[in-house]
């Protein structure tokens, strides 16, 4: 077990270095620099510009900047935002609950619909239900998130006035000592209508973010089920006179879930990318929106540190999925 964890962590190190280089280089490849972006319309004299850049250390050779950045990282210093002057780590943990809440609800939405849809499609293979689900999955998979988000906003917020357009909760409500998880904060606050408001803000972004995972999970579940339903042990389960529910829902699904869990884990990475778009569309104050804003402001430390922290989250989730895989698959269980 310990050895397993150690080997996983060893693999992470090169990944980590790779991400740090990419994050570092990507933001510097964009035209402009933080000082210009901060100044905006105001004119900054070249002397003043050079002075600030020197103060920030951005006049050093690029390799020195990178080494300095790594050196600070090794000391646990993720840097300080040029714009807000606040620490990157602090900002991250302030905004992370919003993204976590959104992603969590999106994945719940995707799993809760995708797994049953895939199971029924496999059981009723070739039926109109199967064809509808697989057709919808194909559409969902290739859906441009931006377009899909705007479409839902136009329908649900614009035409039907069912949901708010943006944010996490009505301005009426404010939880100064909250955990950052709005659903939880609203629920425990006891304020009338708070939970309802939080949920109505959450539902559209969660659907938008969960759409691609939903499509992928439904397809993966269907194909895993189709494979498993032909196995001898499913025939044994039938031969025992078990109900159809036990045969499909226990004996077959239990085995089909093994590849599905892996897929769900991989979707977390995809969702982080999706969160950037979704949070921007819905003005959801999370990590995704933070990253986009920081890129526009060329806030070098935030982009560098933020991407690295996101990568760590994804790696952590993948590690959890790997461990979970051992739990749900007795054949690879680590003893």
């Amino acid at each position, binding site marked *: 077990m310990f050895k397993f964890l150690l080997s996983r962590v060893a693999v992470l190190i090169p990944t980590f270095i790779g991400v740090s280089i990419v994050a570092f280089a990507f933001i510097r490849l964009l035209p402009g620099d933080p000082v210009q972006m901060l100044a905006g319309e105001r004119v900054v004299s070249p002397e003043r510009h050079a002075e600030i850049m020197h103060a920030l250390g951005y006049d050093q050779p690029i390799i020195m900047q990178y080494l300095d950045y790594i050196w600070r990282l090794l000391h646990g210093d993720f840097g300080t935002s040029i714009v807000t002057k606040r620490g990157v780590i602090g900002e991250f943990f302030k905004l992370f609950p919003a993204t976590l809440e959104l992603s969590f609800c999106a994945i719940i939405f995707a799993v809760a619909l995708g797994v049953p849809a895939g199971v029924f499609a496999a059981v009723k293979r070739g039926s109109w239900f199967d064809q509808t689900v697989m057709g919808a999955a194909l559409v969902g998979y290739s859906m441009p998130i931006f377009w899909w988000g705007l479409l839902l906003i136009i329908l649900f917020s614009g035409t039907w006035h069912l949901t708010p357009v943006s944010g996490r909760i009505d301005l009426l409500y404010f939880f100064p000592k909250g955990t950052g998880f709005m659903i939880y904060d609203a629920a425990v606050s006891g304020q009338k209508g708070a939970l309802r408001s939080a949920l109505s803000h959450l539902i559209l972004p969660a659907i938008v973010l969960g759409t691609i995972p939903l499509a992928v999970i439904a397809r993966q579940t269907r194909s895993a089920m189709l494979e498993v339903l032909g196995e001898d*042990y499913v025939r044994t389960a039938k031969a*025992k*006179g078990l*109900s159809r529910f036990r045969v499909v829902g226990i*004996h077959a699904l239990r085995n089909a879930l093994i590849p599905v869990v892996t897929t769900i884990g991989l979707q977390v990475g995809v969702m982080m990318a999706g969160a950037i778009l979704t949070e921007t569309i819905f003005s959801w104050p999370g990590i995704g929106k933070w990253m986009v804003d920081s890129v526009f402001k060329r806030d070098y430390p935030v982009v560098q540190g933020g991407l690295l922290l996101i990568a760590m989250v994804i790696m952590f989730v993948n590690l959890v999925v790997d461990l979970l895989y051992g739990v*749900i698959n007795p054949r690879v269980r680590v003893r």
Partner: protein
Amino acid sequence: MSLLTIRNLSVTFATASGPFRAVDGVDMTIAPGEVVGIVGESGSGKSVAMLGLMGLLPDSATVTADVISFEGRDMLKMSNRERRKIIGKDIAMIFQEPIASLNPCFTAGYQIGEALKTHLGLDKKAARRRTIELLSQVGIPEPERRMTAYPHQLSGGMSQRVMIAMAIACEPKLLIADEPTTALDVTIQAQILDLLLDLQRERGMAMILITHDMGVIAETAERVVVQYAGQQVERQSVANLFETPRHPYTSALLAAMPERARGGRLPTIPGVVPGQGDRPTACLFNPRCPKADERCRTVVPPRQPAELGEALCHYPVGADPRPPEAIPPGFGPLSRQPLEGGARASTIAPEVPGDAR
């Protein structure tokens, strides 16, 4: 009253290249406590017939029958729910591939206990006690420990023992054993077979034993059905079948037994069981039958009376109505004539066997 009666059971698969009748007009009557063998080469529809009876075939299969009755109850008219009260309880089945037949995600104990809970309504504690009992009955040492083992931790022989424990858990009246030893090591095969026969005798349970092996039939069954290309070509008591096989296919199977082989080499039956694409006309055995003539290729053979082993043949062995000179060569005791289609006639079924035993 017979335990199980089947009349005219047929199974047709819908395949990409059209319908394929894998089982054709199978009959069977089994009395309580009786052991009936089904023999035949690979692909002769032995498994499919029994899976059809149990309702375990995929959706692409259509199962039809005139009668399927178990203890006088008409299984054809039953709802699925009613049928599930018989399947797995009164009729149990074990399979060819024990390792693949156990669910890799659940422990042996869970899979046995599940049957007990489903059919006998035992609670957790009682099911556990009974499971341990069953495991020791099927000869598994340290049953408490084995209960928690996952199938990948069990050998083939152990897996088959677990399958047997599961099958006998609810005291079935009929056990269908589909080649229970084929996938196992030779040394284990005899043990498993002995175990099955012991359990059968102790419990007075009827058993249908499917096998390739005529030797196993000789040791175990009272009656035997010889199946070829989905049809039952001969039905006899075991004693009579070994004395006087009536269908040429049976003769060939007997001649292929290692114990009966003559002249060093093990004879085999040339050719293979016809599949979907190469079904011959009239008698399905005619391309491989040394006695075949024009009539065999054009007229569907009749079912002979019981004295002639109910053979599905125009010219049952030992009762060929043709004058001796009209019988095609290649069926004498020692001839080595090439068969039709260029296959070598390495099979020499003695016209009147019995001397070689």
